[in-house]
């Protein structure tokens, strides 16, 4: 059981990462990741919607005829996003103002429908919640990584405006440079950063595969 949990987490965070491998939900990923706090905020919101939608879809899977499953997913996801939007407006009003339209647009994040269709509709509630956590974390980690990268290089700061999430006075964050390389903050920078992240993941995977291959070759030589 424990190894199954680890396996699912590994799937979401690395092997099947919704952003890096499945390339789902790229619209919010590219649009809001100009800073770390934006990435973290949208990552948390998406994580919450994903976990709740997986749980609801899985809990109702026995009563849902296949012909009407898609409208039901849409209904469930849209309601959950509306709830999350209201919660953000009530408790994180500043963050809601910066993320703006991208909170309601979580509705159109195809990663969420994909998990409902591919996983939650055929697995028990517990496993579906775990899948939501794993995939949501994978997505949130990617949003945060790209957000931090673009903020540091594009703006010269890190963790600026964290007060939007944790409250208190406006924070300018860690100021590393007076000015950054603007390109990274602009939309093209989002595409470059995502491409770099995907390339880095592929390079790491290949290196792992190669070192595994050399290890087994050496083992075979020794056996001979």
């Amino acid at each position: 059981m424990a190894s199954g949990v680890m396996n699912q987490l590994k799937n979401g965070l690395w092997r099947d990462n919704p952003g890096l491998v499945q390339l789902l939900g790229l619209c919010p990923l590219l649009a809001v990741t100009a800073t770390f706090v934006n990435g973290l905020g949208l990552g948390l919101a998406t994580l919450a919607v994903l976990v709740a939608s997986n749980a609801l879809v899985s809990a109702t899977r026995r009563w849902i005829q296949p012909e009407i499953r898609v409208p039901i997913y849409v209904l469930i996801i849209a309601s959950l996003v509306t709830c999350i939007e209201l919660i953000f407006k009530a408790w994180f009003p500043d963050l809601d103002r910066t993320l703006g339209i991208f909170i309601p647009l979580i509705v159109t994040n195809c990663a969420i429908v994909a998990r409902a269709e591919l996983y939650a509709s055929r697995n028990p509630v517990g496993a579906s919640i775990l899948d939501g956590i794993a995939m949501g974390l994978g997505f949130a980690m990617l949003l945060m990584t790209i957000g931090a990268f673009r903020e540091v290089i594009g703006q010269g700061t890190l963790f600026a405006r964290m007060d939007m999430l944790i409250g208190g006075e406006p924070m300018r964050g860690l100021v590393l440079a007076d000015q950054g390389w603007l390109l990274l903050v602009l939309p093209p920078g989002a595409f470059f950063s995502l491409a770099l992240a995907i390339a880095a993941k592929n390079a790491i995977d290949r290196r792992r595969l190669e070192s595994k291959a050399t290890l087994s070759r050496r083992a075979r030589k020794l056996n001979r």
Partner: protein
Amino acid sequence: MTERPVWTGGVTLAVIAAVCTALVALTFQLTAQRIADNEKAFLERNLQPALAGLFFDSPVTESKLTIPQPHDLPGSESAIVYRVYASEEPVAALFVVSARDGYAGPIRLLIGVSMDGTITGVRVLEHRETPGLGDRIEITKSNWVLQFDGHSLRDPEPGKWKIRGDGGSFDQLTGASITPRAIVKAIKATLAYFEANRETLFTLPADPVDDDTGETD
């Protein structure tokens, strides 16, 4: 699986729709008050700094006056004016107007003007300017917007109500001149409007108070 009649699908859909609606309604009930409070606090918090150093004793948000199009203020939508009083005497007006020619859409500005026509403060309420460049008009990012305090329509002289790059006397922002230019222009237009309409502005009745706390946006 046995063939089920079509209407059972409709029933399932209706039941789930009802449950989802209930969920949203419940969340709305739980958050409505907080959201209304947040919005009022946000407004008050943003109105105060534009009235720096001014004594007033009226609740600012209660003297709201909406000026519909067409008007001579900057912006293509209705402008809002909050009138500020001290012992029932008018002391200042707060304008919410839009600078239309920003780099990325309109920039919503709050401009405080005291009765003698000097600026008591300027704040940016909403904008879509480039992060890292044009967004330094926000007070949380830089002090750029403070340079207008204390100026009036004839200080600097009207020909100098421009950014330095255009031969005026206001600082621009490194790498962004369209944004500052738009804001300087909007402030100047607002000051001119205030001078022309100072008397009538304070005689018009306030908007009816909206008690509907459920109103979000």
